[in-house]
């Protein structure tokens, strides 16, 4: 046995058998479909749960969902959100965000703000292509965030469903509510 082992070892050394074995694996891969894809031309399919850029959402009737409660600001681990809220003087008891900033250069995309939001005004989208030459444009303000929200509304909704933030559309309509109207009155104000 020993001699046989010795012989094998000698042959291994002389014939570079391990190289042949490895080459075999490598050559086999020549017949595989390539794993890579050509990015700007081909795009990945992104899962619903994907945590991309944040957007602000509106109710179906176009009203801003955000009530400026600042909970996202409190929840944010990187302190990149700044909400400035105020009373909407035209509607007593109506609080809304006059300004809403997300410093996307600081954002860590953890999704805590979405989890925290008591009205599901925030959602993450599948948008990830917003690289820029100017860092200033990465300070997303309220307008930009609503634009993202409007453009990627479907993705945003899917995100909320995927992360159990909302049930499906139909069900969520029953418990979705507007401040300051109590629940149950929402149906009327929706239509």
């Amino acid at each position: 046995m020993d001699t046989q082992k010795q012989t094998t070892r000698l042959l291994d050394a002389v014939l570079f058998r391990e190289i042949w074995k490895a080459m075999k694996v490598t050559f086999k891969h020549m017949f595989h479909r390539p794993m890579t894809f050509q990015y700007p031309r081909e795009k990945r399919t992104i899962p619903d749960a994907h945590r991309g850029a944040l957007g602000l959402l509106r109710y179906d009737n176009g009203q801003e969902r955000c009530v400026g409660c600042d909970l996202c600001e409190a929840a944010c681990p990187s302190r990149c959100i700044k909400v400035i809220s105020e009373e909407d003087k035209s509607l007593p008891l109506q609080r809304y965000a006059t300004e809403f900033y997300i410093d996307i250069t600081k954002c860590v995309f953890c999704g805590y703000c979405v989890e925290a939001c008591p009205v599901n005004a925030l959602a993450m989208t599948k948008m990830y292509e917003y690289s820029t030459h100017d860092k200033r444009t990465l300070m997303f303000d309220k307008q930009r965030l609503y634009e993202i929200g409007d453009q990627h509304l479907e993705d945003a909704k899917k995100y909320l469903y995927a992360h159990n933030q909302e049930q499906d559309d139909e069900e969520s309509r029953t418990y979705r509510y507007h401040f300051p109207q109590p629940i149950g009155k929402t149906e009327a104000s929706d239509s």
Partner: protein
Amino acid sequence: MAHLEDQRETIYKVDPAHPETKDLPILRTEELLLNMGPQHPATHGVLKVILDLEGERITKSTVVMGFLHRGVEKLAEHGTYHQFIPHTDRLDYVCAMYNNFAYCRAVEKLMNVTVPERAEYLRTIVAEVQRIIGHLFWLGTQALDIGAMTVFFYTFRDREILLDWFDELCGARLTTSWYRIGGVERDFTASLETKIRDFLAYFPPKIDEYVVFLEKNRIWLARTVGVAVISAEDALGYGLSGPTLRGSGVDYDLRKYESYGAYPKCEFSVPVGKNGDTYDRYWIRIEEMRESIKIIRQCMDQMPKEGPVLADVPSVTLPPKNRVFTNLESMIQQFKLFSQGFDAPPGEIYCGTEAHKGELGFYIVSTGGGNPYRLKIRSPSFIHMGAFDFMAKGYMIADAVTIFGSYDIVMGECDR
């Protein structure tokens, strides 16, 4: 190292530990200080090592780190326990899930929260997937550092499958933040389960493939066998853990001996090396991937089909979102937990978790209130670097890369 005061030029002496130098002609040589890093492709980030060389041999090495120091421990003191989870993603940014796991476990120990059974299984599965990712990453880069490029492509290809799976699971590939104190953020979906089962079938042959590339490769062997040997006693004294410690023959695996998650319900073995060299550490990691596959398979089979994935402890865990919309008490819970955090009891705990690099521990001191009073991260990378000087002494410059590669260091975790 010889003192240099009077003898700036020394005659190279034969080192009894390296008898092969006997045949070298006696030459006049000078001590050489070699500055490696901080921006060196093989240092896995920003690490600087100052090597004192005699010829090509390392006589002393001084590790300079802190280039990626972000004060994570200080940050922890100023956020709620919950807010710290995304910060743990960025410790060992290659294996965020395991950091999350270790941290959440520590806080659960502090809060005395029991995790629901299904969540335990989910956590274990994902943790083991993360271990595979970690080992794949290590294998690819270590082989690349030593000169075997092909393995890198193959391991990264397979790692990619799992990262995509993470993306589908929690929305991010690397910075996952999927674990929650008291459970996990989100349950598996049917497609996730199918995908992981597919992977279980797909992956074991791939391990054999990597092994084909390396196991008998004479360069690989020359660069790993007998390199950076450390005895069991020394390894323990230096606080090494994980594969680095087990390579030296110490059977220390927290998954087995301070078992947690669903590990106690799984059968698996802990591979232990003999020689304490780089090759053994490589071998252990390969074997651990095979064990991980076993664990995942067992968990998938044993896991209860239904059940909550987050403990229902109103004072600690978040309420389900739909309740927030309709119930005042859940709304209050939501606001209190996000704005002030939960009220931890005063006390201190240490909780170690077997991450793929070694023992990742969190030492938390609480004085009550929503933030930790002190949070210390016992990061294996940092502690392993403490043994670098000891382990590198007498080896060649080229081995330096192999040695810290064999610890599987990630600077994010090392510097914190």
